[in-house]
């Protein structure tokens, strides 16, 4: 964060003067020019948002991976129905006496699995329709873009509901495919506009003129610059998938035999958890979705700020303090500015 305050790609200075970078800083800038790829700056400048977000995600993922191995069978029935949280059952039990904490561990695994699979599939689709179309251009771009926009205005969940009502027995993978084909359009549109702008950049044009090979231009000039955008779109796709699966499962249209946060809520609903006041049953799954979703959006914020440093919320006081600190340090070292 401290290192990248002034870097060539950083329009911070532009923001501050409110004009394009033709003014003062431009001339002095070259002294600071140390062009590092974005991902490197991303790692060196691990912002608090990114750190907190990643921390939560890792914790939840560990719970989903290790939990099921350590905790008991989530489906075993006991004769202690609907008991509130206790030292034995941390999150209480369902109406058939199943351990909700153990269920949470398995459900976390299931929901994360869906999220990641859908995220990957949706990314593939959006790269095909967003990046390739706009890079090739011409009628292919036109038709891909039209298709994307049409998919965008058709509301996803009704479509998912209709499709999944015909597919009676769904595996968790089948569900992932349905979610992926209904959710790629928004990120395809974002990727398209970014690719279009990258394609028209001078250095890409220069590479073309000097006869660089196509795959090299895509691989070396375009894709690396797309990485932050791809990352941010992947994060969004995961959020969407987890929310979508939860909604669908809550409605009883989820994958058969799977255990996810959504199916837990479905069971809670059917077990009258709400009207009987068993909050420990319906609160935790939704809270997990919210917390994971929040952590993912934090990561997304951090990525967005890497893409566009103007969006940082850092207050000006902080900037000043940092500047003052640097000033002291540099005078101590005998550096004249």
């Amino acid at each position: 964060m401290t290192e990248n305050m002034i870097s060539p790609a950083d329009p911070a200075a532009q923001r501050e003067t409110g004009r394009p970078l033709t003014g003062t800083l431009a001339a002095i800038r070259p002294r600071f020019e140390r062009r590092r790829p974005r991902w490197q700056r991303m790692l060196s400048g691990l912002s608090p948002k990114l750190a907190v977000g990643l921390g939560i995600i890792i914790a939840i993922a560990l719970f989903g991976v290790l939990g099921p191995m350590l905790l008991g069978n989530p489906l075993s029935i006991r004769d202690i129905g609907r008991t509130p949280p206790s030292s034995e059952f941390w999150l209480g039990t369902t109406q058939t006496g199943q351990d909700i904490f153990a269920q949470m561990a398995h459900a976390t695994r299931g929901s994360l699995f869906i999220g990641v699979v859908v995220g990957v599939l949706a990314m593939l689709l959006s790269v095909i329709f967003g990046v390739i179309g706009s890079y090739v251009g011409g009628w292919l771009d036109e038709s891909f873009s039209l298709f994307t926009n049409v998919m965008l205005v058709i509301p996803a969940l009704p479509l998912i509901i209709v499709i999944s009502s015909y597919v009676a027995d769904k595996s968790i993978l089948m569900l992932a495919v349905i979610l992926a084909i209904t959710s790629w359009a928004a990120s395809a549109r974002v990727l398209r506009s970014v690719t279009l702008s990258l394609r028209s950049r001078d250095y890409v044009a220069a590479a073309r003129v000097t006869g660089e090979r196509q795959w090299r231009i895509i691989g070396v000039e375009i894709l690396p610059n797309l990485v932050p955008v791809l990352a941010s779109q992947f994060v969004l796709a995961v959020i969407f998938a987890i929310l979508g699966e939860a909604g669908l499962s809550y409605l009883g249209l989820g994958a058969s035999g799977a255990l996810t946060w959504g199916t837990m809520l479905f069971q809670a609903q059917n077990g009258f958890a709400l009207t009987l006041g068993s909050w420990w049953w319906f609160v935790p799954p939704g809270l997990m979705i919210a917390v994971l979703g929040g952590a993912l959006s934090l990561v997304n914020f951090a990525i967005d700020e890497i893409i566009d440093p103007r969006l940082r919320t850092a207050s000006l006081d902080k900037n000043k303090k940092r500047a003052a600190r640097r000033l002291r340090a540099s005078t101590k070292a005998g550096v004249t500015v």
Partner: protein
Amino acid sequence: MTADSLLSVNNYNIVYQVETPVHAVRDVSFELGRGEILGLAGESGCGKTTLAYGINRLLRPPAEITDGSAIFHDQSGIDVDINALSVAELRRYRWDKVSMVFQGAMNALNPVINIQKQMTDIFSTHRPEMSKSERIEECADLLDLIGVGRDRLRSFSHELSGGMRQRVMIAMALALKPQLMIMDEPTTALDVLVQRDILQEISELRHKFGFSVIFITHDLPLLLEISDRIAIMLKGEIVEYNTPEQIYRNAGHEYTDKLLHSFPSLTGERGGFVRSGAASALSSEATR
């Protein structure tokens, strides 16, 4: 300097308070006489625009005026210390005393509201006593005056050519009959013919209304022809401050020399290309 001074700038310093603070303007002093044209020349990034923004207190953080003063000697005889103005006073001072014509004529106009609204809001802010119809009439007259024509009042900026947009900017700058107009590369993005027309226009207007101009450009030959006095900036400092003749005949700083010779000349003689028409019009005006 002269008895009839409009603006005195003394030991002005502006620093960009970033990681490694950047001293963009250092110890700048100059004096601008009433009705004078001061040319401010220098390469991109030398601090000339920052200085101009600073005088109007338009800088945003992290840019900060760290030292120095700018005193505006108002017609009424009152001296205004610009740096000491409160927020409300500053708002009243802006445009009424000092107006600006910006570099980016392309973006200086709001793209989604029409010219009339952008012009009338000057009057509704600074001349609240004017009625709505008076405001509109005044704006229409200004557009006529500047050669855009009153039928363009309802136009949007994308419907105007680059030259027209710059004229609209100048019309706006004239609205309150300010005593000083700061022009930041007003003709840079325009083609040579339009550039000539606009310089001619500015010259005539100045003759008519008698305002002073701070004219910022990297085009020193142009300044030689239109200015009463020229300041040359290098890395935030004024390295040369003199009359055009002196600068042309015996430049005191080697950088001035460099700037003078960095412009191509078709005839072999400096500045003797294309724009001579407008330039001579202006220079005859300038030397009065």
